[in-house]
């Protein structure tokens, strides 16, 4: 991993923002020009949502990768997290503006339809995370910052459950996403809990 980590150290972060954001306008362009099929609104909504979920899973993978495999991608985590929020926002806007269109119905949907309530819940949890993803907030909030950013765990579970709930019939793909989220969260539970070791046994720190 030494070589990989050295390589990562040399790489700048800005291309991650650039390359990561490109699918946003590109998918929109495809939707406009027929590249997303005959029902581009649903397709675009789904593409943005799925990208957001993939990026969310990636942010959750970063600390286990470092702890278990020694691969340090920490410098990219903020970029990936903010990109995730960007796609959640795109997903939400497509739903609001292009899909449902009717304000009254949007409010009823949020209140009455559990999968939408849960999706909105994930979005609301992510708002403070996006707003505090900057150096100033990290400095000002200190230890509160890392505690605050554990909201990612809840947002990830809600996001994956949102996907599972909107599937018709028994579908595998959303369950794989939920499984990945739960697996990555399980890796964070200290070993002592798994092994029922007495408390006080030294374990590697969680993040």
């Amino acid at each position, binding site marked *: 991993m030494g070589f990989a980590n050295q390589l990562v150290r040399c790489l700048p972060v800005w291309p991650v923002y650039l390359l990561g954001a490109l699918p946003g306008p590109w998918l*929109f362009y495809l*939707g*406009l020009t027929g590249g997303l*099929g*005959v*029902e*581009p*609104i*649903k397709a*675009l909504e789904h593409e943005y949502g799925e990208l957001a979920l993939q990026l969310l899973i990636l942010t959750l993978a970063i600390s286990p990768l470092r702890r278990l495999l020694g691969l340090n991608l920490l410098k990219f985590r903020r970029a990936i997290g903010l990109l995730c929020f960007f796609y959640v926002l795109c997903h939400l806007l497509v739903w609001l503006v*292009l899909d449902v*269109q*009717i304000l009254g*119905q949007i409010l*009823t*949907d949020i209140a009455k*339809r*559990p*999968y939408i309530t849960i999706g909105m819940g994930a979005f609301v949890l992510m708002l403070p995370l996006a707003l505090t993803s900057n150096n100033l907030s990290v400095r000002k909030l200190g230890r509160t910052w890392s505690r605050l950013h554990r909201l990612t765990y809840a947002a990830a579970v809600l996001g994956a459950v949102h996907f599972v*709930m*909107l*599937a*018709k*019939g*028994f*579908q*595998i793909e959303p369950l794989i996403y939920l499984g990945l989220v739960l697996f990555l969260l399980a890796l964070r539970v200290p070993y002592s809990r798994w092994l029922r070791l007495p408390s006080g046994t030294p374990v590697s720190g969680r993040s």
Partner: protein
Amino acid sequence: AALGTQARAEAALPEEELAPNTWEEVTGYCNFYEFGTGKGDPSEYAERMTTEPWSVTIDGLVDNPGGYSFEQILSEMTLEERIYRFRCVEAWSMVVPWQGFELADLLTLAGVQEGAKYVAFETLYRPSEMPGTIYKVLDWPYREGLRLDEAMHPLTIMATGIFGKPLPNQNGAPLRLVVPWKYGFKSIKSVVRITLTDEEPPTSWNMANPREYGFYSNVNPEVSHPRWSQASERRIGGGLFARRQPTLMFNGYEAEVAALYEGMDLSEYF
């Protein structure tokens, strides 16, 4: 009588609203979960399905039970065109120019016995040709059902073609049901069995989720799906900025079919 029904149905709305969707839209955007849950999966994989020879078993409470070959059925039936609105339970819609015959004619051929109250339908289940069936998305084979009076209604047809051509596999070749006032999943595809019974038959989506999918599943803007409103729909083909349009009671066929449900609470029998 049949042509009269079509004329009436068309007269119920301005003509341009029944301008059919394109061939690409009708054949490229399908739900046929035996081939996968993606809208493009059926058009990609359904060509694997062998549709020749094809035979439909008609059994249960009929005078002439047995296997009816597709050719035999075609030779006995008169084909006509029906341009129908098609409303998916997922709140999208199309207009499809079908060719087919009235289900009533086929049932009469089989000889419906007294005591028959329902008609059950089954889709082909052939895992070797249906990649989507490796997952138990639904309890295969796909099953649907109608009350006998719904099945005998002149708007209810068995379709064998679209746009003047034989049905493409993804649209339910060679023979499928079309019930234009019900959500699309009631219009079962690639039918291999029709059974007349005296009891309400089990139906696939109702078995999978009875809270969300009722036996009747009539298009009804006032009864929402638990996960989304059914008050409006989006016509396929409008692009990224397509506006929603209001969903019509019984999908616009209220004048023809409302009498079938007189006295029934449609929010209970949804």
